[in-house]
């Protein structure tokens, strides 16, 4: 009802004082898996650290349905109707970018967990993120492909609907061309779109042009299907991708076919371990009885970074929180030490992972530049 | 055989039947005449359970029909050859006839009745393979009657079987009705062609705006002045 929000607000200021933090994540739709994993991390952090400045932190969660318009609606609602003081989210760069306009206009501090596209924080003083951005991620993978796999020719397959995929492909391409010193080292760029299920035409092209690697960042669903169909067609070239492939669903859908694929991710317990990493891993496994993942960890960190900023700001005033967020330095999160640069991006290292025996195995570690 | 008492039917605001009484004894031809919109078709549709009545009773062999679905009523041996033929245009003539016997299980009996229909209407036999929808109006009418016979009715009701038929065919249809009756089927006939139907009917009812205004032996109605004036168009 229209008035309940006001009532809720009153209630929150009356008895025990609360600070409301908005969370918008895709809980249904194509990106639901990532959104839910992230939310688990945020809620875990809220469960472990429920208070700041002596007030209870209340999470207001809205499902953005993996849809850009709904993402805008959700944020609008969080700000105007739910009167939150800060926002966390969203999984999926395109959803974050869409909401960015409102966040900027309403001067609402927001912390992204895993949206890696540069556009998320670009020209937006109110959007921060606790993960690295795609230029870094793309470069990491290109360098790995050239230096460690000895690739000279690459093929790119991208999701034309996802900023995430488009951006990552572009940075990969630039870095790959530079690394190989060959303008023609990219044999082809092929497009598909979210929701596509049959990739035979792209795979036909790949089969024709024998490259050394395929770089195919995208939603884990389409990526898994793509690789599965590639293997069915007898294509044995290594597939490389980005951090979305971390989701367990990627391995479930891909099955045998995704054995051996390589991708960049945000953290691995074998690479960088902090106090918080330990805490997160233990608590997560205790609560959910399954292996933790990077998205959960990033959600966990986003909450903690925000909480830390509120603490430093000493108030729940949104503008002050923003100021404090911008000054975040060497914050110890579950995914490593977090320093937010002038863009609002986290300066972080990346890890490279591989699928082996249906599990993720740690390959190597790349320091932030 | 069939007894209608105080039947009332409403279509939304229209009171189409206003408490009519009709009695159909076994082995007779009964006819229902009346102007357009008098409620003749509605009466037949009510008997078949296609139209819900608001009041009254319909007794068939001592049992109320109101609680039955159309399908069960057909299975009891009452068949309607509906207004406007309503044959299945996308089925062949033969398939239409087979469906007429849908409720029957006796294969031998069905085959026998099929022969009988083909005897009555040799044209149907000639065209048994033809899609019914491509046949001419008169042929379709024959098919509709033939299809009705296939369910082995005890009571055959026909709604304006001569509508839109050429004069020659009209005569043929009436002679076929007599023939069917001779084979032991009770008949309830609706006709605009009041003269022809009263001539073959044992008993007739005259319906006007939902009420029965006159009834009597077919021959008597034929000579009744009012009927003459209103329906036979003779007093001129």
């Amino acid at each position: 009802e229209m008035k309940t929000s006001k009532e809720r607000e009153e209630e929150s200021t009356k008895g025990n004082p609360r600070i409301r933090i908005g969370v918008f994540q895709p809980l249904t739709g194509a990106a639901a898996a990532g959104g839910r994993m992230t939310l688990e991390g945020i809620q875990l952090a809220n469960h472990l650290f429920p208070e700041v400045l002596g007030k209870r932190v209340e999470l207001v969660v809205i499902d953005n349905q993996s849809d850009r318009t709904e993402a805008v609606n959700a944020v609008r609602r969080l700000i105007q109707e739910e009167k939150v003081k800060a926002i966390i989210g969203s999984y999926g760069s395109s959803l974050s970018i869409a909401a960015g306009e409102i966040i900027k206009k309403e001067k609402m501090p927001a912390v992204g967990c895993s949206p890696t596209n540069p556009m998320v924080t670009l020209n937006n003083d109110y959007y921060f993120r606790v993960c690295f951005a795609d230029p870094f991620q793309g470069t990491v993978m290109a360098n790995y492909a050239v230096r460690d796999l000895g690739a000279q020719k690459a093929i790119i397959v991208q999701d034309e609907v996802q900023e995430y995929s488009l951006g990552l492909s572009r940075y990969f391409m630039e870095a790959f061309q530079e690394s190989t010193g060959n303008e023609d080292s990219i044999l082809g760029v092929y497009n598909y779109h979210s929701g596509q299920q049959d990739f035979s035409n792209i795979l036909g092209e790949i089969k024709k042009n024998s490259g050394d690697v395929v770089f195919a960042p995208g939603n884990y669903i389409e990526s898994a299907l793509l690789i599965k169909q590639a293997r069915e067609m007898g294509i044995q070239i290594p597939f490389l991708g980005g951090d979305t492939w971390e989701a367990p669903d990627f391995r479930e859908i891909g099955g045998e076919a995704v054995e051996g694929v390589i991708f960049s991710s945000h953290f691995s317990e074998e690479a960088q371990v902090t106090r918080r990493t330990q805490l997160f891993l233990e608590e997560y496994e205790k609560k959910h009885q399954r292996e933790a993942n990077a998205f959960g960890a990033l959600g966990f960190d986003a909450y903690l970074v925000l909480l830390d900023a509120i603490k430093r700001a000493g108030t729940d005033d949104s503008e002050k929180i923003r100021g404090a967020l911008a000054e975040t330095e060497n914050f110890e999160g579950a995914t490593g030490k977090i320093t937010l640069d002038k863009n609002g991006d986290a300066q972080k290292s990346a890890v490279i992972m591989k699928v082996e025996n249906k599990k993720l195995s740690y390959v190597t570690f790349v320091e932030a530049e | 055989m069939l007894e209608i008492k105080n039947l009332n039917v409403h279509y939304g605001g229209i009171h189409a039947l206003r408490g009519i009484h009709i009695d159909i004894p076994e082995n007779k031809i009964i006819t229902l005449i009346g102007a357009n919109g008098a409620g003749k078709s509605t009466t037949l549709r009510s008997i078949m359970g296609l139209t819900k009545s608001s009041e009254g009773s319909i007794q068939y062999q001592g049992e109320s029909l109101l609680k039955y679905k159309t399908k069960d009523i057909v299975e009891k041996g009452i068949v309607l050859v509906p207004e406007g033929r309503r044959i299945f245009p996308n089925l062949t003539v033969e398939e239409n006839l087979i469906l007429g016997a849908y409720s029957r299980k006796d294969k031998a009996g069905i085959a026998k009745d099929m022969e009988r229909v083909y005897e009555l209407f040799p044209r149907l036999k000639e065209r048994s393979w033809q899609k019914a929808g491509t046949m001419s109006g008169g042929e379709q009418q024959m098919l509709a009657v033939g299809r009705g016979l296939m369910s082995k009715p005890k009571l055959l009701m026909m709604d304006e079987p001569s509508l839109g038929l050429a004069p020659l065919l009209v005569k043929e249809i009436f002679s076929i009705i007599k023939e069917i009756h001779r084979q032991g089927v009770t008949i309830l006939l609706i006709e605009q062609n009041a003269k022809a139907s009263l001539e073959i009917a044992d008993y007739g009812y005259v319906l006007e705006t939902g009420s029965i205004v006159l009834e009597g032996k077919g021959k008597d109605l034929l000579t009744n002045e009012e009927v003459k004036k209103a329906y036979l168009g003779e007093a001129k």
Partner: protein
Amino acid sequence: MSILRADNITMKFGGLVAVSNFQMALQEGEIVGLIGPNGAGKTTAFNMITGVYTPTEGQIYFTEEIKDSQGNPSSHEINITQYRPDQITKLGVARTFQNIRLFKELSVLDNVIIANHLRIKSDVISSILRLPNYTREEKAMIEKSIHLLEEVGLEGVMHEKSSSLPYGKQRRLEIARALATNPKVLLLDEPAAGMNPKESLELMDFVGEIRDRFKLTIFMIEHHMQVVMGICERIFVLDHGVTIAQGTPSEIQNNEKVIEAYLGVD
């Protein structure tokens, strides 16, 4: 010169020849009948004349009166074979349907008003803005429609939904609607179907009346012989798409072929 003329028209549906080489000419002011067994092709002939079907072969001509700049009338024949139904109606050929086709959900009055629409001169914008040129026209349309309904004795049910009328009145309304298009030729497809003999005779008088009052030429399909013989001046007889006879009612009534194929012996 005849007002409407069919020159050897043929209609085939796949392998079926519904009408073959039909030849006909209507003189102004006549009432002409078209009879024949079921499926003979009568309605199909109407459908060709009114543009619902395009004949497989043959031509149809309509004589149009035009006034030159001095206002002197002259007439010339146009070939309407390829015209669409609405174009033919605009020229002045209106019809009714064998299975009544009223605008069921609309009122009786609206049914008739709509038939005036083809002569409208104002465009859609002036109708939305209700400019004077439109409102003037609209008023005239409504007046004319009410007048027509009075003529056919339907003024009392003007505001009823057309589908709620009894059958006989629906047939009258169809005729009124056809008249509202300002026709010169009126085609009636079984106007007496479903009427009892008395109603049929009333209808017969009515057709004669409107012919005189609206200066119409009438072409009529009918199975009620009393009606056909009573009112038609000439009759065409079709059988299996072929014209088997034509002539005056008495000639037709005594024509062997017609008796055999259609009328039967009494």
